Structure formats: C-alpha cells, structure tokens
C-alpha cells in the first residue's frame, strides 16, 4: 500500500472509530432506555428515589438552572466579547490578559467549578444549595465558551463595515448595533447553543451547588436536581435505578441532540439569509 493509501486508511479508521463509539453508546441507551420512556414518565414526579415515577420535577429544575445560567452568562459574555473586539486592540495587554484567563477558565475541570460554586455562592453569598447557586456556577463555566464564540463571530465580520460606518459619521456603538451584531448572529447563536449544551450536560458542578432534592421546586432558592445529576444518582447511589437512569439519559441526549440541530440549522439559516432586516 502506498503512503497515501495508508494515510487514507488511517483517517477513515479514526473517523469510523469515533462515530462507532458514539453509535454504540447511543444504541445501548436507546435499547435500555426506550422501554421506560412514556408520556407519563415525562409528566409524573419521581417516586421511591427515582426507581419509579417520572422526571417532571427534574426537567423543571434542569430548565430553571439552565435559565439562570444562560440569563447570567449570555449578557456578560456578549459584553466581554464586544469589549475585546471593538474597544481594545487585539494585542493590548489587557485584552491578551482577559483572553488568556478565559483559556485557562475553559480548561478547568467542572468539579473545581462545583467546589468554587459551593464555597462562593452557597456559603459565602449565603445562597445555600439552590438552583440559583447551581445556575450561577454553570454561568461561570460556560462563560469562556460564550465569549470565545462571540469574539470569533465579531472578529469575522468584515472590517469594511466598521470603516464605512465610521466614514459616514456613525458612532462605533451604532455600527455595532446595526451592522456588526446582526452580521455576527450566526456565531452568537451557535455559541449560545454550545453553551446550553455544555451546561445542560453538566453534573459535577451541580452536585455541590444545586443539590439532590427531587421535589418540584417552588422558587429559585430551592434545591433542585438536574437531569444529569439524576442520572448519576440513579446509576451510582440507587440500587435498581438503572432502567430509569437509562430513560433519563435518553431524554437528556435527545435534548442535546435537538439543541445541536437547532443551533446548526439556525446558523445555516442566518448564513443564507443575505439580508438582515432591522
């Protein structure tokens, strides 16, 4: 076999391996989880530590935690990205420092975020084991993803827009609002979805912050169990919870799959829509 042939073979092999692992995982979860999945499973509350009953309260808690996380991280992330791209130069000391910090932040294991969240939000700020603490912790975690994608999106907008807007006597802010942000929307949405996906799948950071309580939450200050924590708990701590763990995992994977497809189709949609109506 020629060198080229070997290289082609290896590339195909690794691609197949990656896809294969994913498919195995998916098949396993579907085969074991599909049986327990029903409408009742989605709308009923868990009983007997999750061995029976459904996951309604878990879904609500997950949603609330996500909401807190994204509502906090999205505006912060966008503002930081705007600062980095529009109001500092790329090689300014401050800009480089912020970007380096973000890279480090992105590489920190989620368990460390969990411990930090516990120490800072639960104890120091006195929010206790609550969905608010969990959501804020997740916000810290997804912030680097959001900032990175928004920065890339804004940097890839044509500099011509900035120049022509300036030449027409428009302010930077106005160019940003009317031209740059609309142009960068595909990247912003893609980043947001990526962040939601990451936050939705997070376990370790939530165990120490939003807790285990599987009751239907009354407020954000209640402890709430996220879907991923539910799966972890059922498979690790609850004997006989495996079947329901698989069903919950199937729900989570479906959710992530939907988020992924929506984000990529939204990005495509905006890419092909050549005109932005304001």
């Amino acid at each position, binding site marked *: 076999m020629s060198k080229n042939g070997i290289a082609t073979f290896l590339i195909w092999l690794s691609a197949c391996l990656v896809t294969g692992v994913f498919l195995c995982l998916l098949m396993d979860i579907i085969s074991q989880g599909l049986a327990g999945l029903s409408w009742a499973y989605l709308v009923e509350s868990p009983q007997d530590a999750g061995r029976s009953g459904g996951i309604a309260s878990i879904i609500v808690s997950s949603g609330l935690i996500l909401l807190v996380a994204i509502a906090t991280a999205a505006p912060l992330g966008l503002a930081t990205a705007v600062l980095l791209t529009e109001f500092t130069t790329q090689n300014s000391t401050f800009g480089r420092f912020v970007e380096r910090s973000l890279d480090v932040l992105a590489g920190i294991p989620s368990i460390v975020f969990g411990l930090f969240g516990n120490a800072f939000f639960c104890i120091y700020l006195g929010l206790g084991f609550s969905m608010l603490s969990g959501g804020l912790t997740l916000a810290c975690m997804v912030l680097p993803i959001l900032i990175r994608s928004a920065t890339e999106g804004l940097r890839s907008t044509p500099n011509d827009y*900035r*120049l022509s807007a300036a*030449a*027409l*006597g428009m302010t930077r802010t106005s160019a940003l609002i*009317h031209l740059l942000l609309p142009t960068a929307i595909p990247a912003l949405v893609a980043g947001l979805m990526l962040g939601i996906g990451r936050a939705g799948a997070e376990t370790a950071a939530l165990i120490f912050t939003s807790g285990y309580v599987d009751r239907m939450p009354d407020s954000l200050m209640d402890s709430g169990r996220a879907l991923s924590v539910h799966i972890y708990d059922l498979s690790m701590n609850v004997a006989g919870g495996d079947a329901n763990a698989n069903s919950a995992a199937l729900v989570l994977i479906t959710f992530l799959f939907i988020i992924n497809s929506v984000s990529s189709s939204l990005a495509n949609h905006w890419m092909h829509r*050549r*005109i932005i*109506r304001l």
Partner: protein
Amino acid sequence: MNPLFIESATPLDLAEHKTPEESYTLGPIQTGPPCCVPRTLFSIKNLSLNYGSTPALKNISLDIYEGCITALIGPSGCGKTSFLSTLNRLTDMIPDCKVTGDIRFNDINLRSSQLDVLNLRRDIGMIFQKTMPFPLSIRRNIELPLREHGINKNSELNVILQQVLQDVGLWEEVKDRLDSSALALSGGQQQRLCIARALALQPKVLLMDEPCSALDPLSSAVVEDLINRLRGRYTIIIVTHNLAQAKRIANYAGFFWVSERAGCLIEFGQCKQIFEAPAHELTAAYVNGSRG
C-alpha cells in the same frame, strides 16, 4: 428641493466654459470654470504619517481647491490611501497610526482633539475601492447614516432617498426593489449606491479611493461619468491608478512616489501640466508609462 443636490440641468453648465479638448484641465485659474473657485478648502503642510515606527508619508504639502476634482496618482503602496484617510480622520481607527503636520479644512485644524469627528465625516464623505454596501436593504443603506445624524422623519427620508438615487442614476434601476438586499446589486450599482449614501449626508467633500478599480469597464465608465457630474458641487479627491481616467476627469493632479521607504508628493499641479509638461523626471517617466 435642496439646492445641494444635483439636478439633471446643473446651474453650473460646465460645457460653456470648456472646450472638449481641454475637458480635463482648468487652464489658468482666473479663467477657469466656476467649479474651480480658486479658494483653498484643504491646506496641508508638512504632513507625515507613521504606522508604529514605519513611515508611510513624509512631508506632504499641498492645497486642495474647492469644487475641483483632484486626482492623486502614483504606484501602489506610496501612501495615497493613507493620505486620504488623514483628511477625514479615519486614521483614528488604526491603532498606532501617528499623524504629524498641519491639516486645515476651511481653516479648522483637522488634527485638533476637540474636533467633532462624526460631524467632520459627515462633511467629508469617503468612497472605498471595495464596494461596501451594508448587508441591509437599499433603503436602509441610505437611511441608516441619515437616522444616525438625526433625520428621522419618514417623509424627509423618502425625499432624500429618491434625490440621491436619482443623482447617481440608480433610481430607475432600483425604484421597484428598494426593500430588497443591496448585496444583490451589481458591482457598479453597489458603488453608485455607496456614493448615493455618502451624498445623502450632504457632504462638502468626497474622498474617493480608487472607486472604479473593482468595476468592469462599463460600470467604471458610468461611475466616472457620475464623478464628472459631481464636479463643482462637491470637492472631490480621487485616488486612481487609471492614468487615462485621471487625465479625463481631474482638474488638479498630485503624483506620489516612494522615496526612502516613505510616500512623498513629487509633484502637484494642474492636471494638464502634470500629464503634458511634468516638471519632475519621475513624473514624466510615470505618466509616460516608462516607470511605476
């Protein structure tokens, strides 16, 4: 009707004052057409420009006359575009770009830090080499900068929209699709839209950075014709690599050349003189095509 907008019958009928052979030159200033009031609009003394420690322009001094077309010619990389950008302070946008020297516009110090740059740029429009319509509808392209400058009434906006599009000869072509994307226009149409967008702000000056070089010959001819019609109403400074074009449309011409790795102005004078009786041997070599 706003007197600043060009009507098809311009009150300044240039043809009266020029014979076709001399269409590119003014002749002696005293007898020149009324487009060229011998009044200095820009007065530039010892202008130098550095990008970091790299000099891009050195000791440029020249006057730009009101109502005339001034062409800047010279090889690529000799600082013509940088020079244009100093005139509307677009150099502010470039980090570590340093401008020294004295630039006066209507006796206002252009380098003053107290200058209202946004209003200055409203007075001094700029057209770029690459056509740069915004990714918006044709209407929004014109309206966006106007709204930015406080013109918000729809009736007023519509009047301006139609006037400027008529001025650049685009109205008939686009009047039925004002709300469709400006990016769907052809290159020549896009460039005329950009000119219309600049005209809508009623500037006194138009800086044009090779406005025709990205266009096909036909569109280029249309834009050139448009520039010619703008003469007298606006002071136009045009950077061009097309010597024939400079010769056809300009009243004055400046020749830039790179010396000691910085751009400098070799010769400045009436267009006819620059092309037919250049004083400097470099100019002669460049306009005759033997150098550059």
